[in-house]
């Protein structure tokens, strides 16, 4: 019976880990989206230096989470999000407001998608 209890406990740990992962990814995505939104607002007011700094902060956080994200997220998804971040950074640095609008949306969509794909829904399971 000991073996069964250990297996049951391991199942509980796996489930707990999966739930923790959902919360971690949600929190990470929310923090990043917050920074990106802040950067967007700064850019809208013409504070390009501030927008760049906020965005670089978000990129540092994203890249700093690499150790975690590479273990739990499909690598092509991570690469797409990273590309979107640098594309946006390029638009912000070049002060191209028109192009940045789409790039901001793209980054946010990637982050929402990454966090959302871990959520347990009927649609995601089936």
């Amino acid at each position, binding site marked *: 019976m000991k073996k069964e209890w250990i297996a049951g406990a*391991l199942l509980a740990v796996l489930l707990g880990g999966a739930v923790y992962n959902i919360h971690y990814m949600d929190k990470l995505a929310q923090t990043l989206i917050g920074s990106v939104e802040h950067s967007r607002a700064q850019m809208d007011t013409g504070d390009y230096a501030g927008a760049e700094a906020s965005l670089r902060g978000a990129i540092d956080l994203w890249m700093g989470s690499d150790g975690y994200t590479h273990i739990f997220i499909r690598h092509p998804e991570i690469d797409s999000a990273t590309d979107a971040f640098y594309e946006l950074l390029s638009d912000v640095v070049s002060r191209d407001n028109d192009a940045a609008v789409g790039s901001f949306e793209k980054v946010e969509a990637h982050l929402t998608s990454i966090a959302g794909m871990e959520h347990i829904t009927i649609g995601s399971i089936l």
Partner: protein
Amino acid sequence: MAIVFFRTLIVYFSLLAAMRLMGKRQLGEMELSEFIVAALIADLASHPLQDIGIPMLNGLIPIFTLFCLEVVISGVSLRHVRLRGVLYGRPSVIISHGKIRQSEMRKNRFTLDELTQELRSQSVLDIATIEYAILETNGQLNIVLQPADRPVTAGQLGIAAPDTGYPTIVINDGRVLSENLARAGYNDAWLQKQLNAAKIASPQKVYLMTVDGTGGVYVAPMEEK
């Protein structure tokens, strides 16, 4: 390349541990749930090995989940007969008193070809000689012959059959298994004596040597390479 190599090592040892812990030494005789786990694990394990874009955990988590489920379900089914019946099914009597039970054959999707093949593999050619043929939950067909067709035992003939015990391997491919030798109650001196009697110079020249409970020795010399 290195990633694939290390991933293969991790998945291999994880699978080995999982299959070993499942407690089945004969993988050919798997119960239904074990077969499902084995089939799924084989497929799950291969994906992260081939595609390094897939996190390793995507392969390992399902493997460990399946392994844990199998341990829990098999453990619980050991204690609950009804659950065992639901999960693994029940043995089916395919032949009873020399008569094929066609409804059981249909129920188990067991064809006549499969039945005759199984019977031939067990050297049974006449269905009338079978008292019971039972299709076990692991897919094996076990046969009980009619009393008149069962092999005669020494007990039935009133003959005292000597108990030769279990033959213990003492030399395996030129290597002396000292632990087995001691367990059988012999030593190196006895071994050398046996080899001398068989005109064999050293244990390295022996492919297989066994000794049974009555001291009966079987020696297969190593063939010249």
